């Protein structure tokens, strides 16, 4: 981030620097899915994660819309990366992102009015989703178009998976259905609180507990294997 943009092309060609353009590997894609999962690891973009995941279909719609904005704003920002002056870059990124969000907003309204009503203002609020601005600033503004597309797709799909992880759990517990199909028959007493706001906090908290537990377990195994004390946090 510290180096001047005009030096970047020459620097990347001559010496291997930290911010050099990344070569395309499987890792470019997988990183966003797992090691740098925007929701479970980086805790970004929490608002839509909590607000629209009261059913699987809403979670899917939101995830795909965000992925679309992520990929296309990434392409445009990556194409324009040598022309956007450093001082006004954030404002430029936001305008680019807002353009694509407006597109998505009208598209969803045309495709499914029902989904549009369910997602409400949260489609327009994709503009202020930190994941997108974060990717724009940290990745798209420095990298070639192709790697940007792959990386944005990885991050977008990682975000969608996280939304689905919450959406399915909340729909199953709070409504007894999955994608509208009843799972437990008519005698099921739905756990209503799960599709109401508190449920969002609880389910996300529970997922984070689970991932913490996995990480601590792995650390413990490493410690017993090597005998070296590992940092628990």
């Amino acid at each position, binding site marked *: 981030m510290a180096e001047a943009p005009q030096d970047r092309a020459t620097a990347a060609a001559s010496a291997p620097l930290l911010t050099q353009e990344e070569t395309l590997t499987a890792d470019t894609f997988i990183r966003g899915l797992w090691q740098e999962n925007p929701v479970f690891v980086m805790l970004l973009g*929490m608002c839509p994660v*909590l*607000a629209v995941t009261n059913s699987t279909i809403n979670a899917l719609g939101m995830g795909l819309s965000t992925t679309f904005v992520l990929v296309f704003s990434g392409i445009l920002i990556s194409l324009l990366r040598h022309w956007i002056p450093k001082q006004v870059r*954030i404002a430029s990124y936001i305008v680019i992102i807002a353009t694509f969000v407006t597109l998505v*907003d009208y598209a969803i309204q045309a495709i499914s009015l029902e989904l549009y009503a369910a997602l409400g203002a949260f489609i327009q609020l994709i503009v*202020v989703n*930190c994941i997108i601005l974060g990717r724009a600033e940290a990745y798209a503004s420095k990298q070639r178009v192709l790697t940007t597309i792959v990386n944005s797709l990885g991050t977008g799909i990682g975000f969608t998976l996280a939304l689905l992880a919450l959406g399915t759990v909340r729909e199953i517990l709070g409504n007894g259905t999955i994608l509208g199909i009843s799972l437990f028959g008519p005698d099921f007493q739905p756990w209503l609180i799960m599709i109401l706001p508190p449920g969002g*906090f609880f389910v996300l908290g529970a997922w*984070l507990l689970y991932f*913490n537990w996995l990480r601590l377990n792995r650390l413990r195994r490493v410690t017993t294997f090597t005998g070296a004390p590992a940092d628990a946090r």
Partner: protein
Amino acid sequence: MHAEPLPLIFLNAAIVNNFVLALFLGICPFLGVSAKKETAWNMGLATLFVMLVSSAAAYGINWLLTLLELEFLRLICYIAVIASAVQLVEMFVKKTSPALFRSLGIFLPLITTNCAILGLALFQTTKEYDFVQSLVYAAGAGAGFTLALMLMAGLREKLALAKVPDVSQGAALSLMLAGLLSLVFMGFAGLGGGHG
């Protein structure tokens, strides 16, 4: 909607449909700046101020865009205005209180991407509030945000002294706390007369 009395609008935005705990807006600062009561209070006030400014600006923009039949530009204009309002607050805070500026850190510029602010502008447009109603709505939303932040900060200050299992350190515990707070606020449902 036009006849909605002002105190009711305030109550609705601050408590019944609390922006953080019922509508899930502004979760990032809610989790990020709620470790200490003092910073939480300052962050709340800064957000309240930005909300008032951007609410007034959004009202004007909406009027102009409707006049010119350019509604599809609404989102882009709103976000541009909010970004400039945040810049204004940032300069103001930096000049008047450098200590506060340092303690808010990265979260001050991040008010731009605080969805509570853009959400407020979008909601007041959907609800077709007039100018005064919009301002009251913004004040209510800001007060509600500050309230949620302060409650959370108070709880977390106490919790810092408690012994919790390793597995629930950090964000997981904060989210569980937020869930309980949200449960409490659900008790207010119906108080403001109608939702939305």
